[in-house]
């Protein structure tokens, strides 16, 4: 399913949305406290920044502005690889990237429950990795950096709680495969490289299921 959605998004992005971003942002910075998404972002990230789980598009509402700004910068500079986002980010000026990051950071969006919630065993394994890690695999707890219950740490690490499980799994795989390498000191890669596929699904499903309390 994902493979079918992605080319379409890429096509739309390439043809029309860059122009739309430019038009919407104009030359001045948008107001940071607006609750409406900028139209071209909205097409994928949703009207309130809630994301599009099925297409592995992350929820960005309420995400740390520092984190969002870094991702836009990294897309623009190439250390995070995604053709759709790279096209957008490169078209934006540095102040425009800051302003967009601030705008989404200020938004809130309702939690969207997973279409297929994880089972008890998967949740238990996800909880273990999130809170405690696994000495056998030499994996530390995700919450060490991503904050208590994965709510994020404002200047350094994005929230995971309530993020879509599909996006989380694809982000972890991107770090594992080296297609995403914008983590200073390989902090993400050196942790997730120890996770096997079922651990990836477990931890992604666990955080994806956590959102109702967090958002």
């Amino acid at each position, binding site marked *: 399913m994902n493979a079918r959605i992605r080319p379409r998004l890429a096509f739309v992005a390439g043809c029309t949305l860059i122009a739309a971003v430019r038009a919407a942002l104009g030359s001045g910075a948008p107001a940071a406290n607006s609750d409406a998404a900028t139209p071209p972002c909205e097409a994928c990230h949703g009207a309130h920044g809630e994301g599009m789980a099925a297409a592995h598009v992350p929820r960005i509402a309420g995400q740390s502005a520092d984190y969002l700004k870094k991702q836009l910068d990294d897309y623009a500079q190439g250390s995070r690889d995604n053709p759709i986002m790279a096209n957008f980010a490169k078209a934006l000026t540095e102040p425009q990237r800051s302003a967009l990051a601030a705008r989404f950071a200020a938004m809130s969006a309702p939690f969207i429950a997973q279409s297929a919630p994880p089972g008890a065993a998967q949740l238990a394994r996800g909880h273990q990795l999130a*809170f*405690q*890690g*696994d*000495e056998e695999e*030499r*994996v*530390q*707890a995700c*919450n*060490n*950096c991503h904050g*208590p219950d994965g709510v994020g740490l404002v200047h350094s690490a994005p929230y995971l709680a309530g993020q879509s499980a599909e996006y989380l799994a694809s982000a972890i795989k991107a770090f594992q495969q080296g297609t995403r390498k914008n983590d*200073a*000191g*390989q*902090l993400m*890669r*050196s*942790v997730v490289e120890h996770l096997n596929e079922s651990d990836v699904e477990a931890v992604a499903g666990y955080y994806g299921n956590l959102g109702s309390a967090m958002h």
Partner: protein
Amino acid sequence: MVQRLKEVDVVVIGVGMVGSIVAKELAAAGYKVVGLERGEPRFTVPEFQSPAIHDELRFDVRKALMQDNTREPVTFRNQGSQLALPVRRWESFLPGTGLGGSMVHWNGQTYRFQATDFQLATRTRERYGKTFLGPDVTIQDWGVTYDDLEPHYDRFEYLLGTSGKAGNIKGKIQPGGDPHESPRSREYPTPPMKEHFSGAMFRKAASSLGYHPFPQPSSNLSQPYTNPEGVKLNACVFCGFCERYACEHYAKSVPQTVILPVLLANPNFELRTGCQVQRINLDSTKKQATGVTYIDAVGREFMQPASLVITSMFAINNIRMLLLSGIGAPYDPAKGQGVVGRNYAYQTMSTVASFFDEGIIVNPFMASGASGTLINDFAGDNFDHSGLGFIGGAFIGAVNTNGRPIQYHPVPPGTPAWGKGWKQAVVKHYNHTVMFSLHGSSVAQRQNYCDLDPTYRDAWGQPVLRITFDFPPNDLKMAAHVTAKAVDIGKAMGAKQVVGSPRTGPYTVTQYQTTHNTGGTVMGENPKTSVVNRYLQSWDVPNVFVIGASNYPQNASWNPTGTLGALTYWAIDALKTKYLKHPGRLVSA
């Protein structure tokens, strides 16, 4: 009733850094090794995980990772004429307990001593004359040279993955490194840590004064690293919780992250935790150890026979184990005779605080235990001491290890000690102050020593260790001299106010300084002035090896861990290539 266990080849007392490395090497060589650890087993997961591990009250103030001094205290006094009292709260120094030992809560600062340090007595006589120091200073040569230890320093640094910049590779000075260091055979295993803003300011100011700044060697790693044992470490995240804490990120080089996975997988090794060793047992001649006696966590007493006993405890506990076992003559300061407990030394720490206005933002909370910028221009014998009346020195560095809320609040002199005025000053200065650490050497002195306390006993009924120590006049002169130089660097940085705090006497055991206790079982070439020979083998009982910072005849200007790692591999080399092939004395007395 004492239960006698099956004999093994080797017993290792204390499974910290030294014990883990020795046990790993000997188990890999085919020997049956038992490791006796008094504390608990603990690992990065689950014991070191956040947020619990960042509990400043528990770990920093209440010292949760340290030796339990309700059961096993030490007593302390400044002078032999005083009554020593038990240290009920660790403050001045912090000996750890549990699997991985004190290294679990270290800062990762990983230095080599310089060639001159190992021949300090000879060097001092030759350069400054026989009468330069008074008769009370009992410094002596180590019995090993820097060249002996260089391959072992190298091996230890590559085990840890230490991040740094070489200053001297095989005699060739390297730009960006420390030009004063003795030659190393190759570059550090990983590149240096990122430099703090305070380090960058220090670098600029020190360079302008003609000094030679370099990045602090760090065993909190700058990048992921797989060591020669095949164990992988992660990069440091600069969380600011190194010393007094354990690292949750697999980023600090400690036994759990560099060698225990290999050791614990070897069926030749058996780890027993919760085991309090009471003594090393000797045969009727008192010249041969037969094993050890220990009490387990539920109070059962065991005798573990062994062909070889290695004491690898924290320095002061190595001293005590020999005294409790009757190995070596206890030191008597009145007569200046005996060796066990002699030449106890420490470290002479001073500080300089440079206060800036709000325009300079240093973010002290973004820190690792060893990402400072330093100079060695006033360390060791790197400057001419003629006419100064002291030997030794200190490294000077902007070493910002943390900005933790309970313990870190730099304020200028004259600030109220509590209340509104204090709070306002903390807010004003927290993010705009650069602290220098001046890490000073410590000479051995006749009156400073350790022995068994005549009054106080531990929870198992054994006499506790008594420490008698005050700062030698030599070291206080050194502290004053180097602090003045450091104040000049603070001024060159453009600080509004620079406050130098040279270490002054008397030594107090109730104020944190550093956990670098050295000496007491010193190594050397003469059995009248040393406890172990140059291979760290007991002169008196050849099947006992003592390995620890307790081997240092005096302490140098740097943190002792790197040198202890080198000595550990040096002793292992002697064990494997000499002793175990032909057990007996490696050096004739």
